[in-house]
C-alpha cells in the first residue's frame, strides 16, 4: 500500500464582500491506494473545498496554505498541487487525479457525443490516434456497464438516462486510469434505486481498477455502503477520522454522535403511527375525507399536436381529517404534480379530485379562492419560497392580510410572533430578511406561514430535501409536533422512505404516475407486496456498514429475480 494523496495542514480562505472567510482550517488527511475515503459533513463544512484543492480547482478568490502531495499511479512521481501552475495542473488532472461531478446532466456537454467527450481527455494527454482513442472509449463504456457500447459511443448525452449519464461521467474519469478519483456527491442528484447501482459501480472501480476514491457526501447511508475510512468535517476542521465500521459502531466526537443520531431510519415511525391510530375515535373512518381522488388523471399538454405527457394516471387516494399521508416516489413519478393539483396549482384533466368538498376537475380559481384559507403549502426549497424583499414577519403575515384577518403586516404582528414561537423561532427573527436566515430556519418560517390560518389540510412538498440531515431531523420533529397540536390533515411528499416513515400514518408509493402500493407504514415498509416497493426499500442505504452489506445482498437477489 502506498499513499496516493497526502493533505498536510491545509488551510483555504476566500475573500468575500464581508472580508476573509476561512473555509478549511488545518486539515490533514491521506488516502491509500485502492481505498475509499469518505469526507462527510454538512453544507459549508469545507468538504467540497478540500476535495477541489486536490484537483487545484479553487477559484481565484481563494488563498491556500499547507501542502497537498499527490503521487501518480505508478508511485514514481510526486507533486504538491498547491504550488503547481496552470500547465502543470493540466498535466496531472485526468492522469493522476480525476473528478466525478454531482449533476451528470450538466457535467456532459450536450452538443458532443459521449464518445467524443471521452476521447477529448485521451487526446489532451498525449498522441493517440483517432481509431485508438475510439477503441479505448468503447472499452471503458463497456466496463462501466453501458450496454452495446460500440453503438452508443456515438450517442449524445440526452439519449441516456440519468444513471447512465453518471456512468459515462465515471468512464470519463477512469479512461486515463488515474490513481485517484474525487467524487463530489456522485449520487445526490439520482434516484435511490439508481444510486444503488452507481455505488455498486464505484465499488467495482475500486476493486477492478485499484483506484482510490475520495467520496464527498452528506448521506450517511452512502458512506456506510461504500467507504473504507471516514473523515467527519465540521466548520472547516476534521473532527473525527476512523475506519467506517468503527465510526458507525463507536463514534468518538460529539458532533459525529449527533450527526448519526439525526439520520432517520426506516421502521422508527411504526410505533408512533400505531399509537396515533389507536387514539382515533371509532367513527373516524366514516368521516368525510379532506381529499378524495378517484381515477385521478393529470396530463401536461404536448407541443404542436404532439401527445401530452401523462404525469398522473388513474390514482385513487383518500386523506381523512387529521391524517398524514406520505407520498413516496422517484423523480418523475408524479408525486409533486398530485400535491400541486390538490393546492389548485395544476389543472386536473381527468377522473375526480375532491378537496374540502370542491371538485377540482374544471374548477374556476374564483370559486376555489375562499377555500384556499383552509389549505397550507410548504415548498421544497426554502431559499426561493420567500419574497426576498419582504421581512419574515411580512411574509408570514401575508395569509392573514389576504384573508382579512389583519389590516396589514403591522396589525398582524402579535399573531405572527405567536406563530414564530410555535415553530421555535424567536419573535425578533421576524424583522430579518429571508437571506439572513439559515435553510432550516427559513423552512420553519415557511411552516409558520403555512399554519397561519390554521388550515385543515397541509401539503408539504419535500420540505426537508434541501436541508442538512441534522436540520432535517429538527424540522421533521417540529412538523410532527405542529401536526399533533393543530390536528391538520397532511399530504407529505418525499422521495425518502425513511423520512415519510417517521411522520406518515399511511404511505402511498407512486411509480410512473401510478399508485403501486398503499397502506400503513408497517404494511408498506414491513412487508412490501409490490416488486417496485421492494426494490425501493432495498436500495435505500442504511447508515450501518454491517447491516448495509446484508441489504446489498438482498438487493442483488431482488434484481436477479426481476431479470429472470
Amino acid at each position: 500500500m502506498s499513499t496516493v494523496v497526502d493533505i498536510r495542514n491545509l488551510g483555504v480562505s476566500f475573500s468575500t464582500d464581508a472580508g476573509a472567510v476561512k473555509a478549511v482550517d488545518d486539515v490533514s488527511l491521506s488516502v491509500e491506494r485502492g481505498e475509499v475515503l469518505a469526507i462527510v459533513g454538512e453544507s459549508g463544512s469545507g468538504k467540497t473545498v478540500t476535495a477541489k484543492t486536490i484537483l487545484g480547482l479553487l477559484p481565484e478568490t481563494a488563498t491556500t496554505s499547507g501542502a497537498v502531495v499527490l503521487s501518480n499511479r505508478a508511485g514514481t512521481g510526486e507533486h504538491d498541487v498547491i504550488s503547481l501552475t496552470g500547465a502543470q495542473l493540466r498535466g496531472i488532472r485526468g492522469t493522476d487525479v480525476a473528478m466525478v461531478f454531482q449533476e451528470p446532466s450538466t457535467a456532459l456537454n450536450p452538443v458532443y457525443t459521449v464518445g467524443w467527450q471521452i476521447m477529448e481527455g485521451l487526446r489532451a494527454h498525449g498522441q493517440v490516434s483517432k481509431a485508438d482513442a475510439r477503441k479505448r472509449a468503447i472499452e471503458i463504456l463497456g466496463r462501466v456497464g453501458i450496454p452495446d457500447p460500440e453503438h452508443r459511443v456515438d450517442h449524445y448525452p440526452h439519449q441516456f438516462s440519468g444513471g447512465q449519464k453518471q456512468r459515462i461521467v465515471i468512464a470519463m474519469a477512469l479512461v486515463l486510469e488515474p490513481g485517484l478519483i474525487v467524487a463530489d456527491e456522485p449520487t445526490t442528484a439520482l434516484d435511490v434505486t439508481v444510486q444503488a447501482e452507481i455505488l455498486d459501480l464505484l465499488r467495482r472501480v475500486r476493486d477492478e481498477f485499484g483506484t482510490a476514491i475520495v467520496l464527498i457526501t452528506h448521506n450517511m447511508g452512502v458512506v456506510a455502503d461504500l467507504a473504507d475510512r471516514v473523515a467527519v468535517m465540521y466548520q472547516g476542521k476534521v473532527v473525527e477520522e476512523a475506519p467506517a465500521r468503527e465510526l458507525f459502531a463507536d463514534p468518538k466526537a460529539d458532533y459525529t454522535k449527533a450527526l448519526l443520531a439525526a439520520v432517520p431510519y426506516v421502521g422508527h415511525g411504526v410505533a408512533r403511527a400505531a399509537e396515533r391510530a389507536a387514539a382515533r375515535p371509532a367513527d373516524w373512518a366514516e368521516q368525510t375525507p379532506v381529499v378524495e381522488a378517484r381515477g385521478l388523471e393529470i396530463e401536461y399538454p404536448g407541443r404542436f399536436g404532439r401527445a401530452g405527457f401523462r404525469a398522473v394516471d388513474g390514482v385513487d387516494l383518500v386523506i381523512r381529517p387529521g391524517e398524514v399521508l406520505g407520498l413516496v416516489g422517484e423523480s418523475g413519478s408524479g408525486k409533486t404534480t398530485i400535491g400541486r393539483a390538490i393546492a389548485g396549482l395544476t389543472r386536473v384533466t381527468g377522473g375526480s379530485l375532491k378537496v374540502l368538498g370542491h371538485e377540482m376537475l374544471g374548477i374556476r380559481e374564483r370559486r376555489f379562492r375562499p377555500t384556499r384559507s383552509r389549505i397550507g403549502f410548504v415548498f421544497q426549497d426554502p431559499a426561493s419560497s420567500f419574497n426576498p424583499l419582504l421581512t419574515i414577519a411580512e411574509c408570514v403575515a401575508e395569509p392573514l392580510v389576504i384573508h382579512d384577518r389583519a389590516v396589514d403586516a403591522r396589525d398582524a404582528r402579535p399573531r405572527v410572533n405567536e406563530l414564530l414561537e410555535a415553530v421555535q423561532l424567536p419573535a425578533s427573527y421576524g424583522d430579518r430578511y429571508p437571506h439572513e436566515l439559515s435553510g432550516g430556519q427559513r423552512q420553519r418560517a415557511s411552516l409558520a406561514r403555512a399554519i397561519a390560518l390554521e388550515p385543515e389540510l397541509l401539503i408539504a412538498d419535500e420540505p426537508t430535501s434541501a436541508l442538512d440531515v441534522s436540520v432535517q431531523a429538527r424540522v421533521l420533529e417540529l412538523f410532527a409536533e405542529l401536526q399533533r397540536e393543530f390536528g391538520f390533515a397532511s399530504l407529505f411528499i418525499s422521495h425518502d422512505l425513511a423520512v415519510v416513515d417517521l411522520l406518515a400514518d399511511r404511505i402511498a408509493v407512486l411509480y410512473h404516475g401510478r399508485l403501486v402500493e398503499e397502506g400503513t407504514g408497517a404494511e408498506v415498509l414491513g412487508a412490501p407486496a409490490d416488486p417496485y416497493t421492494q426494490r425501493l426499500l432495498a436500495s435505500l442505504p442504511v447508515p450501518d456498514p454491517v447491516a448495509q452489506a446484508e441489504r446489498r445482498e438482498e438487493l442483488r437477489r431482488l434484481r436477479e429475480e426481476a431479470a429472470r
Partner: protein
Amino acid sequence: MAVAVSSRPGHRWRDRIPVVHQVRQSVGLQRGMLVAGLLMLLVFVLCAIFAPLLAPYGFAQRADASGGFGTQQPPSAAHPFGTTVGGYDVLSRVIWGTQTAILVIIVAVVLAIFIGVALGLYSGYFGGWLDRILVVVFDAIYAFPSLLLAIVLSIVISGGQSNLWGGVLAAAGSITVVFIPQYFRVIRAETVRIKAEAYVESAKVLGAPNRRIVFRHVFRNATRTLPLIITLNSSEAILTLAALGFLGFGIEPTAAAEWGYDLNKAQSDVTSGIWWTALFPGLAIVFTVLAITLVGESLNDLADPRLRGRRRVAQAAGEVAETSVVPGGTLDAGPGGLAGLEDGETFDEHGIEVKR
C-alpha cells in the same frame, strides 16, 4: 426556549442606500470608475441647476451693455470659449445646454419606464393574445433604425423645429418610443421568470388576488435591473438628442441651448480653422455620456458577484464561518453562516458549496 439573538450582521442603514452601498462595496479600479463617473455626473447636475449663476450670458444673448459679441470671435477674456457664427457666447450655451439635456433625460426615461414597465408586467404575468401582439409590435420597433424613427416622430410631434418644451418633448417622445421595447423586454422576461418562483406560487396557494401578487411580489423583484438600464439609456438619450439637433430637428437657439444644434451650425467653421465652436459642445456631450456610462457600467459590474472585484485575503486568514447547524444549537448559530455574508448569493458559480 431561551435564545440569545445577535444583532443583524452588517446591514446598517447606510449600506441600504443604492449608490452609497455600491461605492462601499467596490475596490480598486472599479471603485475608481464609479467614483469618477459619480463626480462627473455631479458636475453635470450642478451645472444644470446653477446654470443661471454660472453662465456669463443668456443662451440666446447676442449683445450686452458694451455692444454686440461679434460672430466667430476666438476665445478671449470676455468670451472664454469664443462666440458662434450666430454671435452667441459658446461657454454660456454649453452651460445652458446641460439643462436641456437633463430635461430630455428625465422626460424620456420617466415616460419610457412607466409605459414599458406597465406593459411588461401585464404581458409577462397574464400572457395571452395581448402579450403576443405586444411582443411582435415591439420587435418590429427594434427592427427600425432608431434615429429614423426619432426624426419621424419629431416631425409628427412638433413639425421639426420648435420652442423649448416642444423640442424637449419631441426629442424625449421619440426617444421614449425607441426605449419602451427595452424596458418592456427586460420587465417581461423578469416577470416570466419570477412567475415561476416558489414565492409567487406560495402567494397563489394562499389565495392572493392577482393585483396583490403582481404589485407586492412580482413588481418589486422585477425592477432590480432597472437602474442599470436607466443609466445606459440616459446616455443614449443625450446622443439621440444631439443627433436630432445635428440633423436639424432640434430646438431653436432662441428657445433653449442645445449642443447638437450648435454642432450643426459649427460644421462649416471647422474647415475654416474655427475650432472653438465645435470643440466645446462636442466635449460637453462626451463628458456627460462618459459620466453616465461610467456609473452605469460600474453598477452593472458590481451587481454581478462574478465581475465584482474583491481584495485578496492574506494566506489562510479569516474566521471559520459558523455555517453548520448543530442539533440543539441551531438558534444560537445566527443567520446562516456564509450565506448570510453575501446577500442571498452563494459561491455556486465558483463551484464552492455554501448553504443556500
